């Protein structure tokens, strides 16, 4: 009997250790992939640092890499387009996303929630090319004619057009994540507030949302990250004209579009080729910074409470 127990004990230990080893390998792999992507970008972007005027790259206002006489690699038009498109999509998506979250977690009847939450999550699964197609064929025309003849967008395909559909992609991510955060606020906190004679709305606004704030901030940041990195919708819907403008009703060409459009046509190992990788690096830094801000915000708010 004693011998038998020793065998099972040893087996259990072996099992424990192998699980530990496997999980360590898997998680290391994830970090390695991240490092490899960063390294690959850096390696391919490196020649651009010497072959392309870096001052011109970061401050240049003209993106004309195929100009046969003097190619210009100013990334500002692309960066500004990325900022405009992301900012507008965030402006549209955040209020809608938060409103839908509050409705789903605090107001909706459980039966409605049971149908609506999966429905919202399915929305997240719509391929971006389908949304882009819709933006290109239906929505662009709708906005084009909406206030005609009083007003018309400057370009038929414009940044606003793309931003609306980015927002449609952001909302499901935001709702799904922040609803989880609101749902995990303990019931006892809500009851405490209601027992003090607070209305449901006061309780939601002053107790539930503050307690869920770290999760909500993370949800917003992640969905903005999604908007910054999204490619297909902006390629199809924003007009793809690299002009420097803050006007959302003009065409624009965000960083992601530029890489997607030009990478297929560019000759390998030319300055243009390397610069596209440098653009990738810029994008990488932006999304990294967004994640960092999300992380910082989460820590800042949760520290104050614990």
């Amino acid at each position: 009997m004693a011998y038998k127990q020793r065998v099972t004990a040893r087996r259990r230990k072996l099992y424990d250790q192998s699980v530990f080893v496997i999980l360590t390998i898997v998680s290391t792999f994830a970090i390695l992939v991240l490092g490899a992507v960063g390294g690959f970008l850096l390696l391919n972007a490196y020649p651009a640092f010497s072959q392309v005027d870096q001052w011109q790259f970061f401050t240049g206002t003209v993106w004309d890499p195929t100009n046969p006489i003097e190619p210009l690699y100013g990334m500002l038009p692309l960066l500004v387009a990325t900022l405009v498109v992301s900012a507008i999509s965030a402006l549209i998506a955040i209020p809608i996303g938060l409103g839908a979250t509050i409705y789903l977690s605090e107001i909706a009847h459980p039966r409605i929630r049971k149908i609506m939450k999966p429905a919202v999550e399915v929305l997240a699964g719509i391929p971006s090319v389908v949304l882009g197609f819709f933006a290109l064929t239906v929505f662009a025309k709708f906005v084009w004619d909406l206030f005609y003849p009083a007003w018309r967008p400057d370009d038929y395909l414009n940044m606003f057009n793309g931003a609306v559909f980015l927002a449609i992609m952001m909302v499901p991510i935001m709702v799904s994540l922040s609803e989880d955060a609101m749902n995990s606020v303990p019931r006892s906190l809500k009851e405490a507030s209601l027992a003090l004679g607070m209305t449901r709305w006061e309780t939601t606004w002053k107790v539930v949302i503050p307690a869920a704030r770290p999760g909500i901030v993370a949800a917003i940041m992640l969905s903005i990250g999604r908007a910054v990195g999204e490619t297909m919708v902006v390629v199809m819907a924003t007009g793809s004209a690299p002009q420097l403008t803050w006007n959302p009703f003009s065409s624009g060409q965000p960083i992601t579009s530029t890489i997607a459009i030009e990478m297929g046509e560019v000759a390998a190992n030319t300055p243009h080729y390397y610069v596209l990788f440098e653009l990738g690096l810029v994008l990488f830094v932006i999304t990294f910074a967004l994640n960092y801000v999300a992380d910082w915000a989460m820590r800042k708010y949760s520290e104050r409470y614990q």
Partner: protein
Amino acid sequence: MSENIKVTGLNVWFDKNQALKDVSITIPKNEITAVIGPSGCGKSTFIRCINRMNDLVPKCKVTGRIEVDGKDIYDADVDVVEVRKRIGMVFQKPNPFPKSIFENIAYAPRIHGKDLDPSLQGTKVTKYTKKELAELVERSLRRAALWDEVKDRMEKSAYDLSGGQQQRLCIARTMAVDPEIILFDEPCSALDPIATAKIEDLLVDLKKDYTVVIVTHNMQQAARVADRTAFFYLGELIEFGETERIFEKPEQKLTEQYITGRMG
């Protein structure tokens, strides 16, 4: 004794399960009434009816009357928010808000404002000034015998306090709304004996100003603090009377079995 809460023919259903059956009881003012009974006997359901917390439970149906100072709180014209302001509640597990100690107390009064004329039921309200709010917080904490322990760290998170301190914070928070009745739903079940003793001392002290109803699974606690004790079994009120009498000369066999430990 002047009556404060008069319950007549109270029935509660959760979906198809009847949790309370025809309960009638009169709870006197400025006394401590303990509600005892084995798990699942409906004692928590009973006090959660008194401030209408069961409204929040889906598929919960309540019939019968609960009159507080002569007014049925289940009448159609009653504002449930006003009911809960007048009838506070302290829960089983300490549940401070994830805010500072000060904010935990100031939270409700800041939103409710100051009732200028209580007889007008919250129609004439003005905001507390910063100074008044600070005074109210101090008064409430003193009343809950917590002030000396926390006065130097009012801006610290309420989660830094021990379990017993958190529970007294929750009591202070309830008193800051200035209720008439405070309901305690097993307030000591998550606390150690020393913290429990402090809460019990506080309870006895509170009955000068408030009517106290306490649910407890601890019979000694009922014997120590309560003026009157009600024994519930399977959703029915079996016996109700002065605590001493209930514990020494119970009239019902079920009560006797329960308090002598042969049941529950």
